């Protein structure tokens, strides 16, 4: 107890050094006076008494030292004083302090932002327990195409679940959508059918109410549902009263028993509904086909799981040879890898880039400290002369560096906070970022920032500090206070500039290559006009009475009424996201022609006016007529790629093709033979990066009843028409909902450009910052060199030297550094740019144009940074400079 009390008081005394010291002095003085009086009483002369008192007391300084050791922690006291001294020193040179702090803040915040993205996107994206062992199961064929999974029919799912021993537990989930007739008209809910062990499997507690378990799927149990936080806020205004509320979905009542916390987005559903799996489930319904997701047992690797599944699968393949292509293999992939895919590469690239930026920032501050060390040479020499040890001086200088880093940390954290907010908006949705991801500045990220700040303290501070004490201390104390021994220092500072230039070349080249890619991507002619086009799903409740005829009738009415909305120019129907379609592919057969077995085509069901609406012209034959669609004729329009690839030079018109995939749809089309009536121009139907795929357009009426999307061309901002469109649909059928309206441009941006623009923007900001830091670095070194050479320059000018010669001399020195950095940076880039290959498109990692532009840019920045100090040097008045000495 008393030892703890003493330790605390010792700690406290550290911060009361002055007071304790005064008190001790007073006490010792009083003591000495008493002793002296005593000796005087014994008959000593005052002078002898004073000496006798001192002898009897012991060495005063020694006693004080012992008392100081006992009363507080010396090292901490020293540190505290160093900090006070450091703050005073730094606040005297405000310009230096602010520049250094801001430079460090830039580096620290950039690294922190990217680390937080990396951590939340790649390292720990899921709120689920055991997510490091969460895997998906796929089956791939010999050409590595994914042929089965992660969705499996119930019977097959249960077979693997029972046979495999490598899994700890398995959950079966599938997505479905249902229409809820709410107070504000019908609304489409994304629901997930989930085996009742689901919440146990994921290990997440509900935010409100409870979750379901096996007892909720007993035959007589009431139907219950658990709600997603997003849906709770969106559709129920975050009202806790939703618990116990009954929702009628597609005609069936479900009672809400719980609401999950915000990041719980399993299968991105609005509602989770419990549903056990039975081998007899119809595989064509969502309930009957589920994603197989499991936890590996601890210590089991994905490879081992694959090995076991391959053995089990071989047994099944003998039984069902049609489902398992020869040489197919299992792939067990962690869900994190499945979601993140190659986005991981993007983030690691960016992380590498920010690390470079931080190093550049550290080089800059180290350079500033070195310049400052020269100015402080006298101060340090004097401290050494009066007895400060080298380690003590190094420590003092490091404390100053740590103070700068701490300033950088605080400013950097604030900047990172803003940066993270901004970046969270920019992240490509779905493109490698899971829905569960939430980018934030949490504790681990802050800890990381602190570690970075501490590491950079040594990174930029240690070298200059050691350098300061290594120098001949006597040189610093000479009367003029001028040093001549600057060569070694200059060499080191030049080295730092060369390193900075080299690193920034690497950064700029990376950004430049991404920019080339992006510009090329944007420059791709999509082949159609995506401006002012709105896409919105039309969602029907399930109706037993719905026939193709009356649904066609409703669609026609919706299209007609929508076209009358002010600002709407035309309205079409399409399946999925035109012209890319629902990504439905079908093998292709042409009677009488031997096509390769891999021949296939992208299918797009649409109304007759879709090509016209998107601005895709016909190059041959005709498009669909109203009669073609009204009567659901067996006719198709193909694109140029289709015609070229499968008919070559022959005329495709009036030829017959077969699309066997259509016979296996949930609502099969029994006769898959079609007559080609027209050829339309190619569009980028696989996105701007890839060549167009062979495509077939079919009349939408062939596939009814089914959910189609409205494609609406407007005269201006398409989203403005949404409310009016919703009203028109309500008039046609009050139970039909308009779902997920989005502009075609936005959709294309999200699908094809988001990631490229994300990488470009972030890397571009880093590269720009790096370039600015480099400019500052070059400028700093030259300005310093010039100030050291003022005398020499003044003499030259006084003796009649040309100012042009002087400028040339200085600029040559600066450009030599830049050139050295350029050579080194280009060499590094040749090696590292290969890492960017996966993010480039139609751009060589050693693209000569980019290299030339970057070299030119750095040369210009370097020349400017040299020019300013050089100009200043020749403006010096010789007499003033010399008198100053």
């Amino acid at each position: 107890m008393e030892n703890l009390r003493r330790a605390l008081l010792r700690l406290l005394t550290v911060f009361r050094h002055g007071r304790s010291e005064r008190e001790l002095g007073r006490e010792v003085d009083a003591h000495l006076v008493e002793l002296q009086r005593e000796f005087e009483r014994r008959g000593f002369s005052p002078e002898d008494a004073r000496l006798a008192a001192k002898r009897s007391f012991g060495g005063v300084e020694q006693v004080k030292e012992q008392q100081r050791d006992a009363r507080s922690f010396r090292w901490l006291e020293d540190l505290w004083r160093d900090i006070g001294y450091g703050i005073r020193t730094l606040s005297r040179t405000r310009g230096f302090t602010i520049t250094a702090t801001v430079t460090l803040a830039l580096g620290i915040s950039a690294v922190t932002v990217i680390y937080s993205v990396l951590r939340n996107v790649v390292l720990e994206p899921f709120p689920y327990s055991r997510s490091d062992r969460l895997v998906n199961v796929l089956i791939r064929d010999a050409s590595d195409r994914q042929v089965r999974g992660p969705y499996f029919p119930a019977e097959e799912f249960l077979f693997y679940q029972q046979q495999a021993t490598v899994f700890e537990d398995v959950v079966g989930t599938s997505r479905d959508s249902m229409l809820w007739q709410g107070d504000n008209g019908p609304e489409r809910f994304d629901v997930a059918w989930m085996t009742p062990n689901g919440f146990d499997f994921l290990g997440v507690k509900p935010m409100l109410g409870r979750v379901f378990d096996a007892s909720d799927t007993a035959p007589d149990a009431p139907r219950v549902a658990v709600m997603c936080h997003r849906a709770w806020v969106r559709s129920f205004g975050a009202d806790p009263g939703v618990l116990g509320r009954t929702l009628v979905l597609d005609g069936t009542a479900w009672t809400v028993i719980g609401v999950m916390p915000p990041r719980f987005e399993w299968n991105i559903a609005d509602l989770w509904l419990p549903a056990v799996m039975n081998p007899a489930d119809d595989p064509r319904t969502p309930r009957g086909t589920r994603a197989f997701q499991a936890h590996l047992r601890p210590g089991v690797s994905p490879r081992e799981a694959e090995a076991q599944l391959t053995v089990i699968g071989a047994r099944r393949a003998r039984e069902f040879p049609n489902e398992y292509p020869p040489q197919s293999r299992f792939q067990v992939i962690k869900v994190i890898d499945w979601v993140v895919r190659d986005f991981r590469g993007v983030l690691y690239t960016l992380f590498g880039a920010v690390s470079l930026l931080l190093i550049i920032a550290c080089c800059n501050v180290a350079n500033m400290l070195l310049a400052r060390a020269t100015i402080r040479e006298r101060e340090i020499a004097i401290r050494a002369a009066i007895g400060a040890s080298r380690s003590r001086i190094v420590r003092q200088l490091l404390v100053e560096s740590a103070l700068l880093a701490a300033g950088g940390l605080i400013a950097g954290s604030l900047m990172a906070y803003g940066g993270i907010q901004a970046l969270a908006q920019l992240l490509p949705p779905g493109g490698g970022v899971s829905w569960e991801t939430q980018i934030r500045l949490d504790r681990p990220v802050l800890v990381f920032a602190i570690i970075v700040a501490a590491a950079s303290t040594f990174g930029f501070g240690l070298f200059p500090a050691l350098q300061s004490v290594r120098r001949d201390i006597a040189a610093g104390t000479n009367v003029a206070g001028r040093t001549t021994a600057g060569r070694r220092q200059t060499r080191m500072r030049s080295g730092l500039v060369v390193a900075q230039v080299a690193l920034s070349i690497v950064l700029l080249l990376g950004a430049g290559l991404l920019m080339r890619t992006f510009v090329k991507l944007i420059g791709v002619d999509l082949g159609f006009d995506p401006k002012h086009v709105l896409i919105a799903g039309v969602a029907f409740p399930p109706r037993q009475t719905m026939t193709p005829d009356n649904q066609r009738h409703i669609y026609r009415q919706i299209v007609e009424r929508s076209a009358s909305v002010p600002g709407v120019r035309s309205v079409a129907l399409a399946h999925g996201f035109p012209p890319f379609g629902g990504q439905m592919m079908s093998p292709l057969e042409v009677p009488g022609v031997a096509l390769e077995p891999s021949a296939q085509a992208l299918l797009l069901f649409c109304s007759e006016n879709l090509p016209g609406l998107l601005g895709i012209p016909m190059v041959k034959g005709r498009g669909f007529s109203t009669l073609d669609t009204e009567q659901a004729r067996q006719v198709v329009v193909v694109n140029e790629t289709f015609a070229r690839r499968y008919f070559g030079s022959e005329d495709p018109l009036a030829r017959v093709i077969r699309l066997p995939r259509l016979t296996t749809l949930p609502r099969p089309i029994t006769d898959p033979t079609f007559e080609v009536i027209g050829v339309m121009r190619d569009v980028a139907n696989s996105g701007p990066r890839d060549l167009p795929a062979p495509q077939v357009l079919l009349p939408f009426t062939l596939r009814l009843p089914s959910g189609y999307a409205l494609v609406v061309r407007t005269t201006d901002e398409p989203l403005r028409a949404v409310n009016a469109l919703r009203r028109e649909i309500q008039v046609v059928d009050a139970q039909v909902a308009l779902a997920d309206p989005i502009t075609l441009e936005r959709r294309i941006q999200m699908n094809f450009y988001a990631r490229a623009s994300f990488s470009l923007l972030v890397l571009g900001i880093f590269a720009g910052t790096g370039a600015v830091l480099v400019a500052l670095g070059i400028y700093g070194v030259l300005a310093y060199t010039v100030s050291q050479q003022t005398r020499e320059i003044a003499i030259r000018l006084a003796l009649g030297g040309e100012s042009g010669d002087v400028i040339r001399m200085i600029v040559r020195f600066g450009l030599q550094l830049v050139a050295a950095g350029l050579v080194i940076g280009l060499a590094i880039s040749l090696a590292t740019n290969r890492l960017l290959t996966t993010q480039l498109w139609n751009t060589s990692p050693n693209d000569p144009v980019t290299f030339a532009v970057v070299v030119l840019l750095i040369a210009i920045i370097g020349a400017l940074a040299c020019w300013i100090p050089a100009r200043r040097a020749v403006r010096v008045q010789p007499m003033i400079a010399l008198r100053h000495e």
Partner: protein
Amino acid sequence: MPSEDRARVELLQGTLDLIVLRALSTMGPQHAYGLAARLDQLADHPFPLNQGTLYVALVRLEQKGWIKGAWQTTEAGREAKYYSVTRSGARALGRQTERWQRLVGFVNKLLLHEP
């Protein structure tokens, strides 16, 4: 001589706190000089330490909360810091004394009775 010196100091380091506590407890509030003078007087030969050495013990005891210092005026009208034993100091003195007795008893036993 250095080794002899060190032996003397080592012996005292463990006991100096006890000596100071006990002296303050019998003398009542006292300043460092008065305390040193008293110890000199008690010892048969001059007290084996410089007077300044007391300061380490004083700050240690004060931080443990066993004694308390306060500035007062001496009889001669000069300022001095007077130390007095606190209540927890008095309790500690009892404990420390008992420990010391046990230790001395054991050492004596060892020295006197063992052949």
